């Protein structure tokens, strides 16, 4: 068996948002460190912000918001289940990160005095900072990677993190998706920056890659963390997005809200007070769709021509720029028609929600030498700026860790088993195609796991996933590209099973639609005011347990706790 063996001090897996920042900050902390950034795409255009981003959703800038206020807002928006210390670590570094990005050449909207033009979208505070020219974000990051002399390997699919006898990170393993060459990289530490698990459910269009998240973000980091023995947290707190119907872009309330746009029902009436994406907001959205008042629309056609033109310019040049041609083909003009919206399939994404690889305020997972940042890690509502801040925290702390840490040997049999798992599909000329296995897994996720969650349906899902797990042994890939899809099908199935098991464990309802259990309809603070953690048991199975919510560093008044439960506009008081 031919394996390319390499050695680096630190390997950062995923070159989208958090990854480049982690790599740059590790090099800044210790320029002698050999830092490798790997991506299964090309770092120049990889990840969620491949085409840039239209704004910061959680800017904590003095004069507009305080870290305490932000920590309180996210605590309330996430029904109290947060590690406030981790939120605070973000909040206190938010403004400095914006200033650094500003110096790097990222263009934020500023007022006539040169101050950041922060807007209000959240229920309580003011945190949204537009970036009308945010399409250049990846170029800015790439320049910093070159300046810091970070080594980069593109088109490398990392599939496993191998650990040593002491349980700490020893190596990472994967393959080149152009040549199928196996790669084993010995390393002192690794940072997972693999983004959301955005390819678990199936978009209603049936188009496999029509996901909100970049489809490369299929949950391979979540799967790797699980197999390395790390804790994953609150996976039952799904991410569900309010998107344009059939199109995978947000509608997008964060851009249009401050300019006067809002989410409306079929009658053109506003039914939620705050369009900020919380589980409760999504439940109100879902209820409106079910109530007969739907469909739900984004309404901007009441705005002035120059405002609509401004919205179009931002939305059609950033983040998901093909949105303009989607509307054009259907003859949708923001001036005349409302824009039909719908709720998306499920995923894991701490960027908007709260589930992911469990990390603390230093970006450390429960496996020594393994760090995680961005959408794949567990800090809630972290968005792009949180990915940058935690990328920085991970890079700096991992660099420090590497200084006092020797390489440890990995178990040869673990590397051998992984090599066989990867090469399996290449050796079969007959069998199931990766596309078939992926489609079936994701279709079952939609059929059985999409909230409202029903215990019996979840049990059936687990049975069906078990059958698909056997089917994985029949995957056939004629070449390296199909092999990448085959290994992604493994990760997608792992995530689907984790989503099901975590949901069954928490026998209450919480986070609005994200964990809306029909058999346990009430929130149960007495038994479930806690995190859930999932990890690999000695027998390889998924084990769940409760973890206490860490002591708050910012007190939240009783009266404030319910703020996000009062989202529905009072005059339409009916609920379903």
């Amino acid at each position, binding site marked *: 068996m031919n394996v390319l063996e390499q050695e680096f001090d630190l390997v950062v897996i995923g070159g989208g948002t958090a990854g480049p920042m982690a790599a740059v900050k590790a090099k800044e902390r210790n320029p002698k460190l050999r830092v490798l950034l790997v991506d299964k795409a090309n770092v120049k255009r990889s990840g969620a912000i*491949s*085409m840039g981003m239209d704004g910061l959703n959680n800017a904590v800038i003095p004069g507009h918001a305080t870290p305490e206020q932000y920590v309180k807002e996210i605590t309330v928006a996430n029904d109290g289940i947060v590690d406030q210390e981790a939120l605070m670590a973000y909040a206190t570094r938010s403004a400095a990160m914006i200033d650094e990005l500003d110096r790097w050449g990222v263009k934020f909207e500023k007022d006539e005095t040169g101050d950041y033009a922060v807007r209000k979208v959240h229920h309580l505070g003011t945190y949204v900072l537009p970036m009308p020219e945010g399409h250049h974000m990846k170029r800015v990051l790439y320049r910093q990677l070159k300046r810091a002399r970070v080594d980069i390997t593109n088109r490398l699919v990392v599939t496993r993190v191998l650990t040593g006898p002491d349980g700490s990170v020893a190596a990472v393993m994967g393959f080149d998706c152009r040549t199928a060459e196996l790669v084993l990289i010995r390393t002192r530490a690794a940072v997972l920056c693999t983004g959301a698990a955005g390819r678990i459910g199936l978009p209603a269009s049936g188009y496999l*890659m029509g996901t909100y998240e*970049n489809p*490369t973000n299929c949950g391979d980091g979540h799967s790797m963390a699980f197999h390395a023995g790390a804790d994953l947290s609150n996976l039952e707190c799904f991410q569900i997005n309010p998107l344009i119907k059939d199109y995978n872009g947000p509608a997008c309330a964060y851009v249009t809200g401050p300019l006067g746009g809002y989410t409306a029902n079929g009658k053109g009436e506003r039914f939620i007070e705050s369009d900020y994406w919380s589980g409760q907001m999504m439940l109100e959205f879902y209820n409106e769709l079910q109530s007969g008042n739907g469909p739900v629309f984004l309404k901007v056609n009441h705005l002035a021509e120059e405002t609509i033109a401004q919205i179009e310019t931002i939305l059609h040049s950033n983040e*998901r*720029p093909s949105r303009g041609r989607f509307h054009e083909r259907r003859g949708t003009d923001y001036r005349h028609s409302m824009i039909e919206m719908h709720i998306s399939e499920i995923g894991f994404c701490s960027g908007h929600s709260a589930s992911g690889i469990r990390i603390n305020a230093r970006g450390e997972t429960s496996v020594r030498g393994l760090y995680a940042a961005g959408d794949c890690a567990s800090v809630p509502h972290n968005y792009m700026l949180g990915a940058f801040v935690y990328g920085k925290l991970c890079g700096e702390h991992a660099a420090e860790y590497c200084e006092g840490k020797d390489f440890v040997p990995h178990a040869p049999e673990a590397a051998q088993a992984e090599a066989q798992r990867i090469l399996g599909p290449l050796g079969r000329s007959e069998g199931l195609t990766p596309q078939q296995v992926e489609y079936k897994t994701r279709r079952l996720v939609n059929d059985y796991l999409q909230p409202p969650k029903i215990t019996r349906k979840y049990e059936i899902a687990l049975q069906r996933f078990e059958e698909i797990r056997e089917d994985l042994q029949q995957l*056939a890939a004629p070449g390296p*590209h199909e092999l990448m899809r085959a290994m992604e099908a493994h990760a997608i199935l792992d995530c689907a099973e984790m989503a099901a098991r975590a949901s069954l464990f928490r026998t209450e309802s919480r986070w609005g639609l994200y964990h809306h259990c029909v058999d346990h309809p009430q929130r149960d603070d007495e038994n479930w005011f806690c995190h859930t953690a999932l990890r690999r048991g000695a027998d390889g199975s998924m084990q769940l347990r409760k973890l206490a919510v860490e002591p708050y560093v910012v007190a939240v008044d009783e009266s404030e706790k319910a703020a996000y439960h009062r989202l529905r506009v009072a005059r339409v008081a009916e609920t379903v």
Partner: protein
Amino acid sequence: MTIALSPTQVPVRVNEEKCIADKGCTVCVDVCPLDVLAIDLVKGSAFMKYDECWYCLPCEQDCPTQAIEVDIPYLLR
């Protein structure tokens, strides 16, 4: 043999006149996050090899000769 091919209309269209892949250009292939583009060595131009498009547009925007047009996949239109 039990594996069949199912033809599908792909969303990325390459203008073969404008494409300079025959001169060694691989920009679109390099930037595609899903790695679905390839070079046809006989024709000397790029083409979409796998129908796994995120219609994200780096291929179109980064093409030095504006040879690429990305449409919305038919299932979503």
